[in-house]
């Protein structure tokens, strides 16, 4: 399946971003891990009726890379055997709750594209003692260049931009 834009996300903001692309006349595919919480049936129908494709309860299972370091296509768990291609890929998979970032005892990583991740090296400092203070882990995220393109190995991936809370904060 071919699209102009594939958004890997899953919350209402991502759906809204998708609709924006659609308004610009683009064909959009939104891959959401769960059932798109907070997006009403009416909004879904609007999205679909304007040519948007919603892949709910699905997730990216593999990424194929082109020789020039751009993303060539994606595979998802549900649509086995069907490559998904796009001009532009939007990484909007959120931080930890939605699995955009993963963490083990002393490391944080972005599981789909292996993007560069900014995080505190000393795990004892990931949290503040006080629950109600801003938590350092809430600043962790993928690194991007000034155009919002995701960095991988220090270099921007030309057709992959980051969107939303997965972007590292200062």
């Amino acid at each position: 399946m071919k699209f102009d834009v594939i958004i890997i996300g899953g919350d209402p903001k991502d759906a809204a971003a998708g609709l924006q692309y659609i308004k610009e006349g683009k064909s959009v595919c939104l891959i959401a891990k769960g059932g798109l919480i907070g997006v009403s049936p009416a909004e879904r129908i609007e999205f679909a009726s304007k040519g948007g494709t919603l892949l709910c309860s699905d997730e990216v299972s593999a990424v194929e890379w082109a020789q020039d370091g751009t993303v060539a296509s994606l595979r998802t768990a549900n649509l086995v055997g069907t490559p998904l291609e796009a001009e532009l890929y939007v990484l909007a998979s959120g931080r930890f709750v939605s699995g955009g970032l993963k963490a083990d005892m002393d490391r944080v990583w972005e599981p789909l594209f292996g993007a560069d991740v900014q995080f505190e090296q000393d795990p004892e400092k990931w949290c503040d003692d006080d629950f109600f203070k801003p938590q350092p882990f809430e600043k962790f995220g993928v690194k991007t260049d000034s155009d919002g393109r995701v960095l991988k190995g220090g270099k921007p991936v030309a057709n992959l931009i980051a969107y939303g809370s997965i972007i590292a904060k200062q």
Partner: protein
Amino acid sequence: MQETNISPANLEMCLKCNICTDVCPMYAVNPAYPGPKQAGPDGERYRLKDPEFFDAALKYCLNCKRCEVACPSGVKVADIIAVNRLKYGKPSHPLRDRMLASTDFVGSMASPFAPVANPVLGLGVTKSVMDGVLGISEHRTFPKYSSKKFVTWFKRHAAEQEQFPRQIHYFHGCYVNYNYPQLGKDFVRLMNACGYGVKLLEKEKCCGVALIANGFGDQATKQAKINLESIGKADTEVLTTSSTCSFTMRDEYEGVLGLDNSKQRNKILLTTKWLFDKIEAGEIKLAFKEDFKMKAAYHTACHMSKMGWQQYSIRLLKMIPGLELTVLGQHCCGISGTFGFKKENYEFSKEIGQTLFDDIKAAAPETVITDCETCKWQIEQFTKVPTFNPINILAQAIDFEKTQTLNAN
């Protein structure tokens, strides 16, 4: 360590967000049902401590898998419920549940007597006996039994199928075999147009979905093993025309029955998925009749949405130039296989489906299209709109000769 969290059915991934409960069609209409989070991961922690915590209200789960579709954490909520029902549940009405569950057994008994069985099953007096004695809702009409089984028809045509250079296996399922051979015939016709001859499996048993739903896990496992063995032996993919058969063999065999189907899983495909991929890869081409016209609405069955495969059916249908297609919002029809046939569930079943029925009325289509046979019964009963499988529609819409020519090599 702790990079991956491995717990049965991802029990421990639950963040307790309650989205599953929010989307559960049964929870919305039945206060006696504790909802998927409670019945699933919450209850499971306690059942692991002591099976005494099994709650009989788990019988209300429709197994529609909407909870799993909604879950942002990948918890197999409905699998947890289904596994526990098999382990600890007792049929509320053993004779009826056994009868409803044994789709192929009852089918094979009824088919030869179809001219008798159909009127008898439709008689008011029979219905009230079924209602009173068997607990089958008198508001329900059993799907009619065909007097000639699909398999009987197919055997007469098997030799010509072997003539095709390319071959594909077909898992017809009980519904095609006993109630609706036309769907099987349409499948064969469509495959033949695409240049494929059809083969049946060495042995085919009912996929077992009704056995699982009614608590007959051992029998379901027995049948599943036979199917897996046959599918394993098949030298091509195995196509179905039922979303539920596909889903059961792909996901429930492992998730609920605990069988290893990793070798067979990706061989079991819904015909629309297989066909779409072949068309995209340029291996198959379809040509459509110029005069085909139809106004239809597509209903995504719950198990279809669990697999995410409505994409394929919708995209294929949209290839038909003369088809004006409305894609309906994804609402459960409420029948959930044999669930809706039980007397105590009839009202729930109707109430759950109401949104869908209203949507269909608003869209006012000539036909409804869906990949699930039990959705078809429910929709036809409550909306009176004739309902078909995408394969029926494709078989009607293609220009057979032209398609055959396009795929001749």
